[in-house]
């Protein structure tokens, strides 16, 4: 009898425990952390994952990994990437076609800039008229939707943190607590759009971690210098990098001009920047600082959540800032990723400790990938690779048009694969003819594969899996250029004569990691099915039990 009673008790306990285990993941997790690593291309994973031992290894081994996740736009960059992650849709809808663009009147627009006093910066050194908001976004974000869905009984708190304002705003939209970094002052900041005044905990953190006072930095390698983890071809080649100085494994003075030379004649501004405090932003220490800031954010704000959800977006920008200068084959980038492995691991541990492992959902992804430096690819034998310099090309286009039509400076601007005609000098009645002439001219340039006028692209149908469709997704009736170019693989059309970028529809630029991890919810599995990154906010909305962002085009991710 005793035996039967004991067995029944045991069975009851097991059943209850199982029921709890099953029930728990169905309710929204208390803490959702979305880590976006700027420029973290998928191609780093097969190359570097054997050397991961901490956070990335945990996510890859224990999480649900979407191995075929792509951004759906043809010229990936930070603002459209983060806006896609934030809104669940494409640039045609959300309007953030690039980091900046030219408006119909020929004015240069930077995503996030807002001169309205209601959006004034909260930095001490901010000039009048300097402000930031999400006014350029034409649709709501998941963060907006979450804040609107918040109720006293089920409160939802959303923070969006990044070094770049465009990244933080792309994810945070109008309603999240959005905080970014002001490079000139070396302080985290925000604008009146998001806070009446800078929260006390931010001010205290800034005081404690004043980057502007940094004089000297040491970048210690994650592993021993002779470790196999660094045994890659061209890892120490800086011939085509924007900066000639070695940062990784080095000690450098931040204001000592002689330590570093720039190779890029077009990069004078950046040259000044490299010696300023923003050099700090291109080091693993910057990632550590942002993750510390995120921890502080949780420490000061998560405890206020009782029965609700805390959604924390963290966009780590340093890999992108460094990657443009040194390229994905460099020691700097590879070591920064090894550091990120460890830093993300520590951050995950902290979050689990704060909210509980079974109550914390982690998502890891990226806003875009990156291509190798074309000259290094050429050295590796990839003769297809070439750098197409935009400024000389624009000069040649203007000279050609001047000779043919007598029009001065007919092409006024170049912005990431797009040319804008000069609205003042090009007669409206000849615009279409001139566009066709330029189109033909561009198609004869080596490395350029396709050219569309904006109207052609908007009116042509492409299937979603065609590369051309990614350009169509990014085309906006009033923000896109008059001519849009698609280049051949490994042929960036760029303003810079050194370094690298991510401006093509090819896998190295669009394919990114996408991993979900929550104890008890996500099984360790790898999903090969092709998915789009803007499915992420839709999936999070489903997990949080709130409506998806209003303009989201996509469905939730499979098996989530």
């Amino acid at each position, binding site marked *: 009898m005793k035996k039967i009673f004991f067995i029944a008790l045991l069975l009851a306990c097991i059943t209850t425990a199982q029921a709890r285990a099953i029930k728990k993941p169905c309710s929204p997790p208390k803490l959702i952390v979305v880590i976006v690593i700027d420029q973290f291309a998928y191609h780093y994973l097969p190359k570097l994952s054997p050397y991961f031992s901490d956070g990335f290894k945990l996510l890859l081994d224990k999480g649900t990994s979407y191995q075929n996740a792509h951004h759906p736009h043809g010229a990936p960059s930070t603002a459209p990437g983060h806006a896609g992650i934030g809104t669940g849709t494409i640039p045609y809808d959300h309007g953030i076609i690039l980091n900046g663009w030219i408006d119909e009147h020929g004015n240069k627009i930077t995503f996030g800039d807002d001169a309205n006093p209601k959006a004034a910066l909260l930095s001490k050194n901010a000039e009048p008229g300097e402000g930031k908001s999400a006014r350029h976004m034409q649709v709501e974000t998941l963060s907006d939707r979450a804040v609107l869905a918040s109720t006293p009984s089920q409160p939802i708190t959303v923070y969006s943190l990044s070094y770049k304002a465009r990244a933080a705003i792309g994810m945070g939209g109008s309603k999240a607590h959005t905080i970014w970094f002001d490079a000139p002052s070396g302080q985290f900041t925000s604008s009146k759009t998001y806070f009446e005044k800078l929260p006390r905990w931010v001010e205290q953190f800034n005081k404690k971690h004043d980057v502007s006072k940094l004089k000297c930095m040491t970048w210690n390698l994650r592993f021993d210098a002779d470790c196999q983890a660094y*045994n890659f071809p061209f890892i120490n080649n800086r011939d085509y990098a924007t900066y000639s100085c070695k940062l990784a494994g080095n000690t450098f003075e931040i204001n000592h001009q002689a330590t570093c030379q720039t190779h890029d004649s077009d990069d004078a501004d950046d040259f000044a920047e490299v010696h300023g405090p923003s050099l700090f932003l291109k080091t693993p220490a910057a990632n550590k600082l942002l993750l510390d800031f995120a921890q502080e954010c949780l420490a000061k704000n998560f405890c206020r959540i009782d029965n609700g959800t805390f959604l924390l977006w963290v966009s780590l920008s340093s890999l992108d800032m460094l990657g443009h200068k040194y390229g994905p084959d460099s020691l700097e980038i590879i070591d920064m990723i090894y550091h990120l492995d460890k830093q993300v691991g520590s951050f995950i541990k902290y979050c689990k400790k704060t909210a509980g492992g079974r109550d914390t959902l982690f998502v890891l992804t990226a806003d875009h990938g990156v291509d190798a430096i074309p000259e290094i690819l050429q050295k590796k034998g990839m003769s297809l690779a070439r750098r197409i310099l935009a400024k000389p090309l624009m000069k040649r286009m203007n000279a050609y048009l001047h000779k043919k039509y007598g029009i001065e400076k007919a092409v006024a601007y170049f912005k990431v694969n797009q040319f804008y005609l000069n609205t003042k000098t090009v007669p409206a009645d000849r615009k279409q003819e001139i566009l066709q002439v330029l189109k033909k001219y561009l198609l004869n340039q080596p490395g350029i594969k396709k050219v569309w006028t904006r109207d052609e692209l908007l009116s042509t149908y492409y299937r979603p899996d*065609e590369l051309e469709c990614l350009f169509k997704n990014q085309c906006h009736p009033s923000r896109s250029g008059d001519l849009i170019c698609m280049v051949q693989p*490994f042929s960036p059309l760029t303003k810079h004569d050194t370094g690298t970028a991510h401006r093509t529809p090819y*896998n190295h630029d669009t394919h990114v990691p996408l991993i979900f991890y929550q104890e008890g919810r996500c099984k360790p599995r790898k999903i*090969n099915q092709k998915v789009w990154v803007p499915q992420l906010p839709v999936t999070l909305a489903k997990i949080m039990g709130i409506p998806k962002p209003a303009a989201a085009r996509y469905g939730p991710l499979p098996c989530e």
Partner: protein
Amino acid sequence: MQKNRLSSAFICILVLCASLLEKIHASDCKDPRLTVVIIVDQFAYHYLPKLQNNFRYGLRTLFKEGQVYTQAYHAHGIPETTPGHHAISTGTLPKDHGAILNKWINKEYKKECYVTDPDPNAAVFKPQGSSYLDSCPEKAECGKSCVKTMVDGLSDQFMLASNPPSNRKVFALSLKSHPAIATANRLGKPIWFDETFGGFTSSKKYFCSLPEWVIAFNKAQKFSTRSHVVWRTMCRLQDSMYDFPDIKNYDYAGYNFSLVSLPSIAIDRKLSQPFELYLKTPAASQALIDLAKTCITHNLKKSSDRMLLWVSLSTLDLVGHIYGPDSIEAIDTLYHVDKQIQDLMNFIHKRIDPKHCLYVLTGDHGIPPMPELMQKRGIPQARRIMAQTLINDMNNMIAKSYSLNNIIKGFEPTYFIINKELLAQQDCQKQTAILSALKKFLQDQPGIKSVWTAAELRHLTFQPEQPENHYKTQLYHDRSGDLICMPEPYCQITTYPKGTSHLSPYEYDTHVPLVLYQKRRIAHKIIDEKVWIPQLPVTLAYLLHLARPSASTYAILPGVEQ
């Protein structure tokens, strides 16, 4: 009781050990030392239901033990060797990789071969080692490279992932130059057979000088002195393996003699291409297999070395065009290929643990039966449409109606080239009228289903599965024709009065076998889901832990897990 418990515990330990060992094995064989992609040129899927029971060797092993995709298709409307091999190596379609056909007509109305490269740095070597350019400077056009491929491929990504001390090598071997070059991409090493001098060769684009092991192989094979070759069938001709209708019907074949029946096949050095017949025999196929073995021996030495080896067996295609898929020549060639693949696998497994070898088997395109044979079998719509007749008729019609001579400048399967300068001289209305008249003429021909101008095709919308879509994705700026024709099933628009060719988007031309096999990693499975061949390189990139070819938008094949 105690004994029972002990034996239960022992069994449990055994089971645990076995599962642990299995796991160790599984992790141990993850990264194959050698990946062999065998492409049998013109290996249509329709051969399988007919011949599969007669396969006894390598093909049998692959189909019995590998992961078999029963619905694998090429996704272009005019399947040929060059676009087929590009799909397999780059994971893209002609609209992206640019190699729309084996050759096309350029802006100057000249035929341009995919492989030719006028750059002296792409000069081809004679099989003895010196280059063509060294001995005959006028042959500057004898250069070959993949300069016209506009994307990167799996071979490129394999080499770009080089990470010392592991030594990575890619070799692409074929009897023809275009399959070898198409699969080697820019960073692999293609080696092919030189029909003029006899022997395997490559170009300066890939090697400073022809490797010693290739020169030695050519010498050992005695290509320079060989006078004839004998075709020995796999079985006696009376065997049931050859008991098929029309197997010895030569009425419509490109040659009026049977290669199988000849007592010996001459290598006549008086001809411009003395090895033309040799290449159509199983002996040529065996030479390629032997070259693959030599290549492995010389280039895969250390256990840390990794090799991607493409072997494109061209003989079936060379024979199939002449004799058709029903012929004894084509069928016996496949039986030989069966045995030759086993021969290669046996050789490899003596050197490398089978669990470290990943094999892939597929075809670059299929083949239709000869249209005349189909008519005889009661398919009345089957027909051969002679392209030159159509050109003459169209030119006569336009000359008569508009007084313009030679408006059609040429034909490459299955499109016509218009004299654009002549057309541009006419006013807009006349241009439209001429184009409409030409289209209508073609549309009215029996056996032609659809006709588009390139501009029309570019702007039409089709479902991905529609055969029409496969014509659209085969368009490439400055390389495609002006009037593109889609034939009815079993109709061929061709320049050849005899033989057969693969020029349509239909089942027999686009459906090919696809098998993946790696012992202990990829178990036997039949997958009936429809898949596309460009998914293969993406899948291989995944299995080999590489970045995928950069322009491929295809997904990994179903049923493949790490």
